């Protein structure tokens, strides 16, 4: 049935749109693609936007990272954390209980209070964290079920505008999640409530590239 429906639908569309030529390259794109902020202001805007969403933001040097991570994990009040394979071992450090996600079951992930991941990019204009779910970022489920997400972002990964992010990845990822603030709803009387199903608490560490 479906294969004949395929032909039927395509045929209907072909008849409806016949004799129309319209080149993709001719689409006008007058919108702003590249930002104007320098690196410091980009980080500043990213921080401001994330805080607007109620996320915690801290900034540190590479050397300070283990201490900063340990501090944030301690602040979270949680004790067990999932980490994805491929996360540099010195990033999470060893001052908490970490479980590497090697095919953990959903239940095992759920029982962890938090997760620590890297990210593929940050977009300061919208305060967005981009995950492509490769090494260091992990399967989608690990940054979904735990209630606390600590995300480590390198300052050099932060772009200003959404188009700059797309320019950065001409090869589209197989999977992507763009997170702009923690899970939220305004379904009841338009009152914004943080945390429906995704992690209720998001903490972002921005690592300066001064090595």
């Amino acid at each position: 049935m479906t294969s004949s429906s395929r032909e039927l639908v395509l045929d209907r569309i072909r008849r409806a749109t016949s004799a129309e030529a319209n080149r993709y390259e001719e689409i006008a794109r007058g919108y702003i693609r590249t930002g104007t902020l320098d690196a410091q202001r980009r980080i500043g805007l990213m921080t401001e936007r994330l805080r607007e969403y109620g996320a915690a933001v801290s900034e540190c040097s590479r050397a300070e990272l283990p201490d900063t991570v340990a501090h944030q994990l301690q602040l979270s009040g949680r004790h067990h954390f999932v980490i994805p394979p491929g996360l540099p071992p010195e990033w999470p450090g060893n001052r908490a209980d970490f479980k590497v996600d090697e095919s953990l079951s959903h239940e095992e992930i759920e029982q962890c209070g938090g997760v620590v991941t890297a990210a593929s990019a940050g977009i300061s204009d919208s305060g967005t964290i981009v995950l492509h779910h490769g090494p260091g970022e992990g399967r989608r489920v690990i940054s979904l079920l735990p209630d606390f997400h600590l995300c480590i972002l390198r300052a050099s990964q932060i772009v200003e505008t959404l188009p700059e992010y797309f320019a950065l990845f001409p090869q589209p990822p197989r999977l992507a999640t763009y997170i702009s603030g923690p899970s939220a709803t305004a379904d009841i009387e338009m009152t914004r409530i943080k945390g429906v199903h995704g992690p209720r608490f998001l903490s972002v560490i921005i690592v300066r590239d001064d090595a």
Partner: protein
Amino acid sequence: MSGPVMDPRIAPPFPEAALPILQNTQLRKNVAHATDVIQAKRNRLVAEKQDWQQLRSSASAIRAHVLANLTTYLEQFETKCTAAGGVVHWAKDAAEARSIILDILREENATEVIKIKTMTSAEIQLNPALEAAGIAAIETDLAELILQLGDDEPSHIVVPALHVNRRQVREIFARRMGLPELPDDPEALTAAARTYLRKKFLSVPTAISGANFLIAETGSVAIVESEGNGRMCLTLPRTLITLAGIEKVLPRFSDLEVLLQVLARSATGERLNPYNSLWSGVVPGDGPERFHVVLLDNGRSEILSRKVERQTLKCIRCAACLNTCPVYRQTGGHAYGSPYAGPIGAILTPQLEHMQHGQSLPYASSLCGACYEVCPVKINIPEVLIDLRARVVDQERAQPRRWTDPMYMGMKVANLAFASASRFRLAQAMGRLGLRLFTDKDGWIRKLPNLGARWTLSRDLPGLPNQTFRQWWTEREAGSIGERLRGKEAPR
């Protein structure tokens, strides 16, 4: 209590459905509050965007380009999605889409299915079909859950339960979740939904979603949301079925740089939605093992073939036109008798029904144009409304009962009168005499009989002046010629 009818094939005409709602002050208060809040947020974020008009133009151009080249992009999407491990199905109409989905679910031995809010599923009346097949559909969007548990129907494309307030939500949750002590603050109500659904997310192996966008270049699907219920449904189950209209496709991954920006600002007044998810087919070790896409025509190819109406398919379902519409803001969504409410519903619903149902909807508008102004993909909704009204009138003109319709007969007579100057003058004279009967001493008409009563029901009409323009003009010319003959210039 029976809920509102949201099937355009059996729903009452708009004016009839709207009347009782206009008397429901609680509902109107809820709708006004919600639309005010979203509009204020949307306006603030649009104002801060310096390149808003350029983004709108590009979004409109991308969507128009897709529609003009739809077979190319659909075939490309199918090829890429299949190569990535997805299975693509084509459904010519709602019945076929339902049967494809039911077949997949039977093969999965599914008894329950978790759902992400999807307009297309409501369009094809999927939930009743699932129920009839013994499969429990569990809505996981908070608003949809409120409606499902409350036996209610959605009244808005983006925030479907905006007509329900916190006390009503508390009552529904307390009753249906067995939580008599539940307080009525939104935080506690949201937490109750979180607990209630978490068990379902972890145990139900089959999910159904819609799609915000299909990407031809990669064969991937994009879903935007706020709560995370979408991510749960896209990630945890073993099998995922995505139902998408054929118009949802975008050429390239990077086109999202335009569409995501305009969608988030228009829909919820955010810079980006809290969660955007993208996936291509099946990714081993991450997410569902089986993935199906059902591409739905259901009247869309017919809309595509009409020059003026085609732009309807550019829609990205942001609902900005609902929030700004002076009609929607009074009636809410239920009066439209379709999952698609507001201005976009007024043009989309009758077309999806091949102009056989929902013919009152193109008239559910004052043609003020506010919807066109806010539309992020520049759909000229008033233009389509007028075109559809013409089609409705054409239909009426073809029916035998037109001879007993006072409106039709009135128009026929008017046609006759307007076609000749002498008949027009005669009609004017007769009208003047006739209207005098209804004109009050102060020169105003307050009550007319029959069809005219529809006008005077809510407005007064100034009585006719003593002279027509033509009479005045003739007198004036006669006067000035006389002046000229006497050698004087006519006064200016």
